[in-house]
């Protein structure tokens, strides 16, 4: 029943206790705040940095060179753009040094719209991240996957972006994480820092167990024959909801794939589903020009052109400079439930 924020926190605690995580750091990551989204509250190795993203990524690289295992945070992915060259260098260290230097770092950052974040707290990052070779990029849509992907990211000896859908950070899973107490209130009493003075507060960590979502493994969250819907992160639950509504109201059924890993991605699952349905829709909230979904579309066209019965399609955010504060901007530029539902309906009903 944990939220994504709690799940990541417990995975980081598991990482500190069992996987050799030496440093969890970033702006406001350490006490007293424990992260602007509470993701790092109570962690033993959490510390606050100067307000300097380049220093955060550079220091993470240095810690990794010297044998540490860092997990660092860019507070919002909107603030990662001044570090793109350092991401590129972190991604090339093994290749550049012909295998001499590994770069086991995890960078987590909240991404996407949905919290009324206006221009500078609503960016997406997956398309940018997917263009930085040498990295792995994961993005959960629920707490259990967040827990399993974070543990995988820590265990992986390569640089991994853990993109967190910020609008879902407080969304609770219907399932329990392995080791999590059954009562959500009890969990909150154990690991959520109190409001106000928390000088003497210590978390009571549940005895969590290892759970891994392998990097590069998607999940088929709905099964059906009328189309393949590929999504991840914040829009995945909307795709599921739309698919369920269309099943109920119109009898359409879809393969809904939660990609979970942006790179490497689960091509086998995509490929198998597209061959079955002949219809494919890729949904995300990133801006539509040079969007990661276009890469998937290219592979679908390249490798499954003759398997398709209708044109393959995408549903993406509008190519505009930002998300406007007035909700009329956001609801008219970022795919909403109605847009997703309409796109799925079209996918199922377009004549072949």
């Amino acid at each position, binding site marked *: 029943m944990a939220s994504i924020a709690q799940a990541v926190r417990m995975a980081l605690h598991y990482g500190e206790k069992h996987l050799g995580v030496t440093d969890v750091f970033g702006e406001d990551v350490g006490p007293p705040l424990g992260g602007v989204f509470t993701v790092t509250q109570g962690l033993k190795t959490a510390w606050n940095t100067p307000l*300097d993203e380049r220093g955060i990524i550079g220091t993470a690289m240095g810690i990794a060179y010297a044998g540490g295992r860092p997990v660092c945070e860019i507070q919002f992915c909107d603030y990662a753009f001044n570090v793109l060259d350092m991401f590129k260098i972190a991604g090339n260290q093994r290749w550049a040094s012909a295998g001499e230097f590994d770069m086991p770092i995890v960078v987590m950052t909240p991404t996407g719209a949905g919290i009324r974040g206006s221009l500078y707290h609503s960016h997406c990052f997956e398309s940018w991240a997917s263009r930085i070779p*040498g990295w792995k990029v994961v993005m959960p849509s629920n707490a259990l996957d967040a827990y399993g992907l974070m543990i995988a990211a820590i265990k992986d000896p390569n640089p991994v972006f853990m993109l967190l859908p910020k609008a879902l950070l407080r969304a609770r899973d219907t399932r329990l994480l392995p080791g999590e107490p059954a009562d959500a209130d009890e969990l909150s009493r154990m690991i959520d820092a109190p409001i106000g003075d928390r000088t003497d507060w210590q978390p009571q960590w549940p005895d969590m167990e290892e759970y891994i979502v392998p990097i590069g493994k998607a999940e088929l969250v709905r099964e059906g024959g009328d189309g393949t819907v590929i999504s991840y992160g914040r829009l995945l639950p909307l795709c599921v909801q739309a698919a369920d509504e269309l099943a109920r109201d119109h009898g359409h059924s879809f393969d809904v794939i939660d990609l979970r890993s942006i790179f*490497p991605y689960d091509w*086998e699952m995509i490929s198998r589903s597209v061959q079955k349905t002949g219809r494919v829709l890729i949904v995300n909230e990133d801006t539509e020009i040079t969007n990661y979904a276009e890469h998937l579309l290219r592979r679908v066209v390249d490798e499954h052109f003759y398997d398709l019965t209708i044109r393959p399609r995408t549903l993406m955010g509008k190519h505009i400079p930002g998300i406007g504060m007035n909700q009329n901007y956001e609801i008219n530029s970022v795919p909403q439930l109605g847009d997703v539902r309409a796109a799925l309906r079209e996918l199922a009903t377009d004549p072949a």
Partner: protein
Amino acid sequence: MPELNEDSSDLDSGSPRRTTRTAAPAVIRSGREVISAELALTLFRQMIRTRVLEERSIKMSKSGEAYFWIGGPGEEAFNVCLGLQVHRGHGPAFDYLHLHYRNAGVMLAMGMPMINHVRQLAMRQTDPHSRGRNFVGHYAVKAWNVVPVSSVIEVQFAMAPGTALIQKRHGGEGITMVVGGEAGTAEGDFETCLNWSTRPGQELPVLMLVTNNRYGISTDLHTVCAEKLVSDRAAPYGIRAESVDGNDPVLVWNALDRAMRYCRRERKPFLLEAMVSRLHGHSSSSGAQRVWGETDVLATFEQKLIDCGAIDSVAVQAMKDEAKAEADAAVVAAMKEPEPTREDVYRFTYAPSEVDAVYPKDYTGLPGAK
């Protein structure tokens, strides 16, 4: 007769020198500072090796055996004095080196064979630093804590606090040394290093080294920067700092010695700026022609050693001949070695991972590609 576009070697030119030795001195002096004569000769020999290797490298870049040259002729005193004082080894007990692309002298003084430099320049599969992938002088030696050099200016200053942080926790005398030019200090990453090395209670053993040759490619420092000394940048952070004449090996050796002792024992940062010459311009992109009119540290040190009787011109010539033979042999051997192949393109992208379903061993092309 050298080709028109080829400079004559510095090592063959110069003023008349004494040919006989007077009583050999025990120490070499510069003002009030001294080093032993024995050390001076060691420095001199390593400086000659460095210059010879750089000149041979420039020749390769002009002959077409290599595509590009960048390096540090004019910085030999600084580089050799640094390399000889490194605590060389692997892990946080030893020094970490975040170098830039003018540090051949550091590596030679640390013990890198010339051929490993040439292998990178000649883009051989045997290049231990990058398998023929990177520019020359972009070293990477895990066994010596030499982290991969990048061409991106100043990023190493943002990474240095990370290795130093682990060293501070580890204890002992291992320090982090980070090297860059003065032009790069305009980047925010320089300020990052100053700031992150002095968090209250978390001061880090980082030795920040700035070689000031007064140019960023073609741009004169004094047209883009008002500060008088880079070392003045240390003051707001309470960091100890010094500027030293990088063309005086005696002063450089002692300045590095003082700075390293301070970082090793106090576990705090130090900023050392060395004023150096740039004798072949920025790189082969600007022609790499010999620049006259700047102090040549090799020539002035040679004269000083001869004048005080520490060496004679016969011995000097023998050292130069030996270094040239070493460089020539390295080039001949490296050029016979294999080049990278098509199969090398994807190799060493990813470390093996037990949690990766697509790339458990290494990159193999697009996910699921047949």
